[in-house]
Each structure stands twice: as C-alpha cells, then as structure tokens.
C-alpha cells in the first residue's frame, strides 16, 4: 500500500534540499546536498559519526543559526518556499517543523508546562479548557498519558529517560507541525525503550512527515521507508530503504551497510 503510493508519486514532496552547503567557519560540513523528502513517510539518515547527519537535520529547521560562525549557500524548500530566503519567518518555520534531540531535553518546569509551552509561545490557544484538551491529547498520542496523568504538576525531570523523550515528542506534536525531525532519539535509551519509541514513530507516520537521524542501521531498516546515506559531508546515496540495504548502487554504501566500516 505504502509502496504503491510512492510508485505512483501521489505523495507530495514536503522538503526539497537544493545545492546546499554549510560551513562551520572555514570547515565545510555539508557539500552540495540535493535531496527531496516526501510527506507522511519516515526518511532516515545514516552514516558514520561526524559525517554531517545532525548538521543536515538541524539545517531543516534552521536551529543551526544559533551557532556562531555558521554559513550556508543553496536552498531548502518547505512546501515550495525557500526557508533560507531572508524574508522567511523563522519562528513559524520552527513551529511547523518540530525537533526531538539526541538527549531528552525536557525543560526544568512541570510536565504540563512542557507540553503547553509551544501552545503558549505560539499563541495557539488561550482558553484553559482547550489547552488542557490539547495537552491530554498530545500525551495520549505518545502513549504517556496513563502513566503520568496524576502528576502533571511534577517537574519533568522526575520522569525516566524514555518518558522524558516521549514528553519531548508530545510537546512537539502539541503545536501540530507537519514535519518532525528526530536526531538519534534513542541513543540515550535501552533496547526496550528504543522499541517503544520506534513503534510510536510508526504510528505518528500516518499524520506527520518524519526525518530521523540514526547511526543504528537496524533502526533505519526497521522504521524508515527512505534512507539517505552520508559520508564526510556528502550525500552518497538516497533511495528506498529496502534498496539501500539490499542492492545499493554505490560501493561506499555497500561497504557501510554490510558493516565493513563505520
């Protein structure tokens, strides 16, 4: 079913990266990236550590702008608009493209306030009852509600790491983004918690476009439909996940997925 959609090209291209370069000072971290990501699929980015996966992911919501000395050329189109155009509204971009970080980073405030944070700063709703509803729904969507519904006022830092990561996902989907970026979301979690987060991603895929960075190839194979393989700041190969893992076109990809390096 899913594959059929892809073949017929019915799914829209949500993110299109064109001739994209990124420099940290003089160091060129991304070189001539061209990639298009389709909506409501999971796209994974794999490659050895330091190849630029996080950098590319962080370019899609322009959170790299917070690092001193970052320079880019080229374009990234989201819904057909170039987000690197000077007139583009970055705050609304980031609202539309949520991000989950490598280490769970709930704010040191209450669980409830963590989820309502995005609603408040984006002025999505002011009515308390509406806000309560959205907070509950978001926590239900990440399968956290039943565990924590009695301690919403407690500090988010009292949760386990896995719960914290779910909370971080909940706080992203509360503002109803179209895209969710995940940067090695399971690297701080044990295998059981990892499985649970992966199952969650497969559910979320129905409503969101998901891009996940991982250095765990099994994870990429388990959850994603498309896979991009990167090496030393370059995009080596981008294709359907099954193709990347069974009959890659490039020798570097083959070496990597068969475990010869990385």
């Amino acid at each position, binding site marked *: 079913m899913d594959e059929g959609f892809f073949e017929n090209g019915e799914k829209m291209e949500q993110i299109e990266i064109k001739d994209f370069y990124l420099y940290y000072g003089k160091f060129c971290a991304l070189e001539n990236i061209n990639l298009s990501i389709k909506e409501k699929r999971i796209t994974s980015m794999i490659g050895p550590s330091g190849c630029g996966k996080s950098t590319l992911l962080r370019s899609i919501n322009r959170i790299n702008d917070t690092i001193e000395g970052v320079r880019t050329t080229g374009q990234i189109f989201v819904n057909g608009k170039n987000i690197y155009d000077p007139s583009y509204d970055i705050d609304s971009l*980031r*609202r539309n493209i949520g991000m989950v970080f490598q280490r769970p*980073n709930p*704010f040191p405030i209450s669980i409830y306030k963590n989820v309502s*944070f995005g609603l*408040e*700063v984006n002025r999505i709703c002011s009515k308390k009852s509406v806000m309560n509803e959205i907070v509950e729904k978001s926590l239900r969507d990440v399968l956290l509600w039943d565990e924590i519904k009695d301690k919403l006022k407690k*500090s988010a*830092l009292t949760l386990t790491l896995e719960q914290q990561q779910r909370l*971080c996902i909940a706080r992203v989907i509360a503002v109803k983004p179209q895209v969710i970026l995940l940067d090695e979301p399971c690297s701080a979690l044990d295998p059981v918690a990892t499985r649970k987060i992966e199952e969650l991603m497969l559910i979320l895929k129905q409503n969101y476009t998901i891009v996940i960075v991982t250095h765990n190839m099994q994870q990429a194979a388990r959850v994603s439909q498309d896979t991009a393989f990167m090496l030393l700041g370059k995009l080596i190969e981008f294709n359907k996940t099954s193709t990347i893992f069974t009959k890659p076109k490039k020798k570097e990809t083959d070496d990597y997925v068969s475990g010869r390096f990385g």
Partner: protein
Amino acid sequence: MKKTKDKIIEKIIFICGILSIIFVALIFGFLFKEGIEFFRDFGLKNFLGSAVWRPTSVPPQFGILSLIAGSVLVTVGACIIAVPLGIAAALYISELAPKAIRDILKSLVELMAAVPSVVIGFVGMVIVAPYVRIILNLPTGLTAFTGSLVLAFMAMPTIITISEDAIRSVPKQYKDGALALGATNWQAIRRVVLMAAMPGIIAAIMLGIGRVIGETMAVMMVTGNAAHIPHSIFEPVRTMTATIAAEMGETVRESLHYRSLFAIGLILFLITFIVNFVADLFSGRSKNQ
C-alpha cells in the same frame, strides 16, 4: 619519607580547618556572652520594643527599632535597585551582547567589585548625595535612598557575576528545545533559560543582600546617621552597622553602652544567618531536582 610528608600536610590542613571553626565559635561566643549580659541588665523588651536610641542620656535608652528600620530600609531599597538591574545585566552579558561588548562589560563588572567600600562611600558623599539633594529637592542629600544607591552599586557585581554563571551553565539544549518549538529568542530566554537558572540567581541575590547587610563604611558616610524611625526613604537614617562602628570608640569597656553594641551585633548576626539559611535552602532544593 613521602608518607610522613603526606601526614604532616594532612595535619596542617586539619589544624587550619579546626582553627577556622574555633575562631567562628569564639566570635559567636563572645558576641553571645556580652549580648546576654546586656539583655540581663537592660531587658530584652526595652531593647527590642523601643525606637529611642540615646546611649549617653540619663538614664540611657537603647531602643534598637529605629536602627533595624534604618538597616531594613536601606537594604530593601538597595535590593529593589540592584536585583532587577543586576539580573538584566547578567542576561545581557550572557545571552544578548556581541562577544566584544561582553568581554568589555565583564571586565567592567570585575572592576566594580574591586573598588574599596570607603572609596564608594566617598564618591557617594561628595557626588551622589549633592545630586540626590538637588534633583529630589530635599533638605539633605544624606538619606536612606542615597545609602540604597551606594549599596546597590556594591551588590551588583556579586549579583551579576553569579547570575551570569548560573545563566551560562544552563545546557544549550534547553534553549535549542525552546527555539525549535517556535519560541522567539526572548521567549526562550525568559521562559526556559531564566527558569532553569533560577536557583543560581536566587543564590546570587542572597549573596548580594549578604554583602549589603554587612556593609558599614559606605553606609555610614552617606545615610546621615539620624537614629529615628524614618517616614520615607528620602530621610536620613542610621543603620545597625554604622551605629556599632561609630560608637565603639567612645564607649567604656564593660559598660552598658559597650555591651549594647554587642547586642546589636548579635541581632545582625541572627539576620545574616537567616538570609544565608534561606539561600542554602534554595540552592539545596535545586540540587535535589
């Protein structure tokens, strides 16, 4: 050979530690002894229940209320000025200022901390006080308000440097997380960075207050030293510390007046102790989180 050397150094450090505890205990014991004797002779109720401080009249009167009022007024005034300014400066330095300006400001703050209090008092007396008098159209420039201004200047370096440390040690992921949710830079700072740094900022404020409460020289030079209950912050006042410093030289050892100054010291000690205790409570709570 090495072992004996280690042993000796260990012993020296141990003795130093014990000595510092002994000194503090001695100071407190002395303060307590003289203070208690004063309370026995003069009565705790007369001391804490009156605002008339006339140690040399006959019979002498030792009502501490006006001195406490003076200290509290000057201290609270200093905090109202120094806390918002200090936190704003810390935020600007750590989050908003371009790197070049940040470095300049940081050295300026360090310079501020290095000015001796008697110099600050002198500047307060010959420059700030006349301006306070002229601008506010007061009979004298030596007021509680002037004292607050001078003390605020002294508390700010403490508040700024420690708050700035607290703000800067907030993990970058917090701010990134807030920005990634569509918050503006200012929203991220106010709602997340500042919240995360709050225990440290409170500790900074407490330490700033501690500096202000204990300050003597500068306050004595600019507050006018009138021992009465003030009706506004624009009147002269006298603080507890200034009273001790000004009168200690004129008293006869072992006299009632002499002991009354120790009693003031005891009250001051109690207040600082409470402030420190509250500060500890806050920083302790942040560690448990």
